[in-house]
């Protein structure tokens, strides 16, 4: 056990994931067949022998709450081990929703004070990676840092990240949140390890200000005044913040960039209708480079795709480069290409989705949906012989009426 209490930011809506986060927090989005995104950080914490975790959650927490359950699946149950969902709450005097990442932590200082831990790990639940935090902890102690921030070197420059500049001693000498021209290739993983006393001090001083984000408001201010260090993380890390990067992350599993058998990710197997009580997959079809979960019934063709439990692919149907969530049924001769399809959807016989217009970006979300992916929300009902172009979003529970939907459309 290391002397660390973890506070996990799991409440984000993340608009860039479009309808996948319509009814759930990003951390609750299903991935790799049987997991949810939050399983990665929870498993990391478990394997790092961090025993107590507070989960800061605000946006549509139901799926998350039922997924966490008692915490037993990650061994966060016992006399000295636990996980607690920290939602916004009413108190006497002034109170409000969480107004930012730092505010969420600030409002839960009483939780932090319940424990004796001298160091607080604050991390986002939204990323896909396997990391043991023990080396980070040792580094943090060795540098006598006030805060240590994890960075990952990324070649592709993006305006979505925080960037750091680290000197030879590991000291962070510059930090810019979402800069137009990044000062380095080192991207913040939004994993911060704070000395508890220092954290309480800066949260108190930030609380008087108008904006409350670690990346935007706190880190840039302390870079030059305090002992802020950078910790370089060298393994696989995925942000999976946009539809495109979510799709790429899934394909990384099929391309062997992620070896789940080594990552030892745990999930809630008892959650209603996820894996529990399901029959093994029945396969009598053509499968190539695919992940297939229990109770899938495959009579058609599945290529370069990931199927969650309970997906049916009828004979003559084709699923290519796609990600299909739980209990979706794909009827005879339907064809799906580069589709992300949420739970409980029905794709009628002979429908063709995502095979044309890959070059036509979404009219409503031109920056988010332009690489030829089609997203179908939960409970989508696509009648027989419907034709749907690429870069289209069908919002949840839509009963499609038209027989042809042009590429780049939004249906809600």
């Amino acid at each position: 056990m290391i002397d660390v209490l973890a506070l996990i930011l799991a409440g984000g809506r993340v608009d860039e994931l479009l309808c996948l986060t319509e009814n759930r927090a990003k951390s609750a989005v299903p991935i790799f067949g049987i997991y949810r995104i939050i399983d990665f950080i929870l498993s990391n914490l478990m394997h790092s022998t961090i025993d107590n975790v507070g989960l800061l959650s605000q946006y549509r927490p139901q799926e998350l709450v039922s997924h966490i359950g008692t915490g037993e699946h990650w061994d966060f149950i016992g006399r000295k081990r636990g996980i607690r969902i920290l939602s916004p709450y009413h108190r006497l005097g002034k109170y409000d929703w969480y107004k930012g990442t730092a505010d969420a932590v600030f409002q839960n200082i009483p939780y932090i004070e319940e424990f004796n831990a001298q160091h607080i790990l604050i991390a986002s639940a939204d990323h896909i990676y396997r990391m043991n935090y023990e080396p980070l902890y040792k580094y943090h102690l060795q540098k006598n840092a006030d805060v240590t921030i994890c960075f990952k070197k990324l070649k592709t420059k993006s305006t979505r990240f925080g960037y750091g500049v680290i000197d030879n001693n590991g000291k962070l000498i510059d930090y810019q949140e979402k800069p137009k021209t990044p000062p380095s290739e080192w991207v913040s993983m939004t994993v911060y390890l704070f000395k508890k006393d220092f954290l309480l001090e800066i949260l108190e001083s930030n609380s008087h200000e108008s904006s409350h984000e670690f990346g935007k408001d706190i880190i840039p201010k302390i870079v030059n005044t305090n002992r802020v260090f950078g910790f370089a993380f060298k393994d696989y890390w995925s942000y999976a913040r946009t539809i495109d990067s979510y799709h790429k992350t899934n394909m990384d599993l099929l391309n062997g960039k992620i070896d789940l058998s080594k990552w030892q990710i745990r999930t809630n197997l008892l959650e209603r209708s996820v894996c529990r009580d399901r029959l093994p997959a029945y396969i009598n079809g053509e499968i190539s480079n695919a992940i297939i979960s229990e109770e899938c019934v495959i009579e058609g063709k599945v290529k370069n795709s990931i199927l969650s439990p309970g997906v049916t692919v009828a004979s003559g149907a084709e699923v290519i480069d796609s990600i299909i969530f739980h209990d979706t049924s794909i009827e005879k001769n339907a064809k799906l290409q580069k589709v992300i399809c949420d739970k409980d959807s029905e794709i009628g016989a002979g429908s063709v989705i995502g095979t044309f217009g890959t070059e036509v970006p979404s009219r409503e979300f031109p920056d988010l949906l332009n690489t030829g992916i089609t997203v179908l929300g939960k409970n989508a009902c696509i009648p027989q012989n419907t034709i749907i172009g690429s870069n289209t979003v069908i919002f949840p529970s839509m009963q499609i009426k038209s027989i042809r939907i042009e590429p780049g459309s939004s249906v809600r």
Partner: protein
Amino acid sequence: MKKNIVAMLLAGGVGSRLNILVRQRAKPAIVFGATYRIIDFTMSNIANSNIDVVGVLTQYKPLSLMEHIDNGRPWDLFGRTRLVEILPPKTGEEMSDWYKGTSDAVYQNLGFINDFAPELVLVVSGDHIYHMDYNPLIRYHLEKKADATICLINVLKKDAHHFGIADIDSKGRIVKWAEKPKDPESDLASMGVYLFNKNILISSLNRSARTNGVDFAKDVIPAMLKENKVFGFIFKGYWRDVGTIDAYWNANMDILRKDSGLTIKNWRIKTNTSAKGEIGDRPSSYFSQSCLISRSLIARGCIVEGQVKNSLLSPGVRVHRNTVITDSIIFHDTEIGSKSNIQKCIIDKSVTIGNAVIIGTGNPVQNKKFPVHLHTGLTIVGKNANIHSDIKIGKNCIIRPGAEVLKDCCSGNTV
């Protein structure tokens, strides 16, 4: 705690005809349908019939069974008024000893039954594959004002000598009973499912114990026929006693046959997926570009690069490239190298098979040591066996658990 009905599940059977599959586990604990165990069918039937107190009588190699039953939670038999209790043989009390038979096991646990003061006691076996709601049986039993009701199923006349065989009159009352008769007079076989009025059961067991009776089918039922009202309840549906290797293999294959009547999903069969070595936290199965799969059931955690036809793979099985598996049942965490060919084979857990291994080839000579167990061409490979590359193994062979196989093995031989 008062209950209307208590179930006593007999799970102590050795099932010796299943040969090496029961070397380290009791028959009810044998893997079935890739991720299930045989006992799951009876456990699920009990739970789905809303019977919520179950005593599980164990004796032979109970460890894997106990781990599997755990606290009863997989079947929702867990809570303040719902429970499963494992009842192993015990010493130190009057009359306590090893269980000498099915009725003796229940007799030694009358204390457990009395704790719940039930009106009815359901005695079932954990050895069978079937789906049954016990409520119609209970209604029938009450309607007939029976002392005991025995579930019966029509079997083929030629198989009748394996079972307890009953003859019933027009009112459903059992008038004749013969345990494993040489010349069966009827084709109504006992399913090993008995429903008793508790008081009658207690007096019958006491009476039987005085005359050294230890078995329901041989001692208790024949005596009850003279003294009590014993009725037969005819069950229609899929029911298999998977007591032989051949029957076990066939029932597994029934899962892959669409019209067999065995539909695990509709039957709402539950299993313990979180026990050690089970599906647990394994990732979903991966199927490579080179795989070719038809009519097969594949559990989570497998990696398949070869060809799998008409087979069942339990969690964690790995099939390498250019290997062909046909008509086989492969248990957890077995790894099969490349360019191998496996036909009609039951392979137990954690077996390692090298490259270019051929199993199930040659003439169908019956097994020399156990001709009764193995004569239909099936070869069985025991847990942890290691079959080296380029080895050929014939039909009806037995590879014992943990064996190092360095030499070819012709049909009918045992390693």
